[in-house]
């Protein structure tokens, strides 16, 4: 984990309420796809945990949805403005278990962390399949970006207004894959858990206090003991998950 100041390079709206922000700063603490950063915002007490979409030696890309006053403030920020960010938080995905044909399933704002994961797996020569799930055509983003990585990309919409009608589990049922990685809302994770034919990893969300394992605000029970979503997660293996009653 590292605390440092980042400067906003660019910000664009990808949909009505999803924004992509590119920041310049020290990314040396980021070690794996699926990690997150925790952003301090003027006028708000707690930081905002946001998943990492992509990064290189000097820049960080995040994609976030406006869900409250904090992210609303972020969406109005301009290039040149600075942000105090904790980087390198969480465990991230373990790529070593992917096999030859991993499938990546992202739902809504669960899509962004899949991007760097797909990039790294593609760079290892894996045949990466990606299923991106959204509610409706207007919410779809990053389809072309995943295709540009050389992935086999399918998009689903719940209302059928774009791509395959249904959920991410609809195309998954027809697919042959070696392992799965997923991130999205909990009902989607549960559906993937049930529908998946292989082992895999899923990233969880929870309201956090600190984001670095100190406050026990985001604890959950797993089959391998109590875990902190922020520090021992957010990525859990399918075999250890214990769903809340």
């Amino acid at each position, binding site marked *: 984990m590292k605390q440092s100041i980042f400067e906003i390079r660019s910000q664009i709206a990808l949909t009505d309420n999803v924004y992509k922000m590119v920041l310049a700063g020290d990314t040396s603490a980021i070690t794996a796809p699926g990690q997150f950063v925790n952003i301090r915002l003027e006028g708000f*007490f707690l930081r905002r945990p946001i998943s990492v979409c992509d990064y290189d030696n000097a820049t960080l890309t995040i994609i976030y949805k406006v869900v409250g006053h904090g992210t609303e403030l972020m969406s109005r920020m301009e290039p040149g403005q600075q942000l105090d960010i904790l980087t390198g938080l969480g465990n991230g995905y373990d790529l070593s278990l992917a096999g030859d044909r991993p499938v990546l399933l992202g739902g809504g704002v669960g899509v962004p962390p899949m991007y760097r994961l797909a990039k790294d797996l593609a760079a290892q020569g894996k045949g990466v399949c990606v299923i991106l799930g959204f509610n409706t055509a207007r919410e779809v983003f990053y389809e072309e970006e995943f295709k540009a990585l050389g992935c086999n990309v399918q998009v689903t919409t719940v209302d059928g207004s774009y791509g395959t009608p249904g959920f991410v589990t609809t195309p998954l049922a027809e697919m042959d894959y070696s392992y799965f990685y997923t991130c999205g809302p909990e009902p989607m994770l549960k559906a993937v858990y049930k529908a998946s034919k292989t082992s895999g990893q899923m990233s969880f969300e929870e*309201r956090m206090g*600190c984001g670095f394992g100190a*406050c026990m605000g985001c604890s959950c029970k797993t089959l391998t003991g109590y875990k902190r979503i922020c520090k021992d997660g957010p990525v859990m293996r399918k075999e250890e998950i214990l769903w809340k009653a």
Partner: protein
Amino acid sequence: MESLSVNLCGIRLDNPVIPASGTFGYGYEYAELYDINELGTFSFKGTTKEPRFGNPTPRIAECPGGMINAVGLQNPGVEKVISHELPLLKQCFHKPVMANVSGFSVEDYAYTCEKLDKEEQVGWLEVNVSCPNVHGGGMSFGTQPEAAAEVTRAVKAVTTKPVIIKLSPNVTDIVAIAKACEEAGADGISLINTMLGMRIDLRTRKPVIANKMGGFSGPAIFPVAVRMVYQVAHAVNIPVVGMGGVSSAEDVIEMMLAGATAVEVGAANLVNPYICRDIIRELPRTMEKYGIQNLSDIIGGVK
């Protein structure tokens, strides 16, 4: 050269800054970031007789100027704290540590304190009779003078190290409770624990926190904490550890002027993990600004 050192119940602290229990784990998350031996000491995660998972999530809600938590004393239980956490802590922290203890019966408190009292690294026992997040325990001992005194007597009977009783602000007369603890043999008082609070999500029309209510902390409660530290410090003859919304070197000095011998920093650690180190490094300059030579001289300076 300014002197930051203070004496807390017979043990010298290099400086009065103490990360508060529940915001600093057992130290090692922060030891990855900086040398935590810069701290005066720290109060480790509230420990109970049995292991506890705590409350369901969500456990956290944000507020203007602070946050609400309802963690519910998640901890591995005293046996595992002694066998697993303290050896890890010993590797990164070489000063006496403050052991924070909670319980659900007078016997629980005595059992856990007796065990921790025997640990070499433990300098003080901070007995939490004020957790707002557990039912049938915690705070219920801190809201009645006689119940707080009973816990104090039971713990004092089985321990040798200084016993500091941590009080709740969610009471009508905190001075009466502090005095009852002093009469029962407490070596110090720490205050304030969090204030009972609640937030509601307008979209779901449900409480944000699964446990409905939780402990409100952060800069917003600082004035309440200063007032209560002032009231208690002027009513008892034992040292008072002040806490509640402290987030700067100036806040530390204000707390000490109100009567605190040492000062705990809680919620601020969760937002800026370096805050305690930053406050300690800032203190000499702030002391110079306000003409303070020795921090220990200003304790209770406001009459």
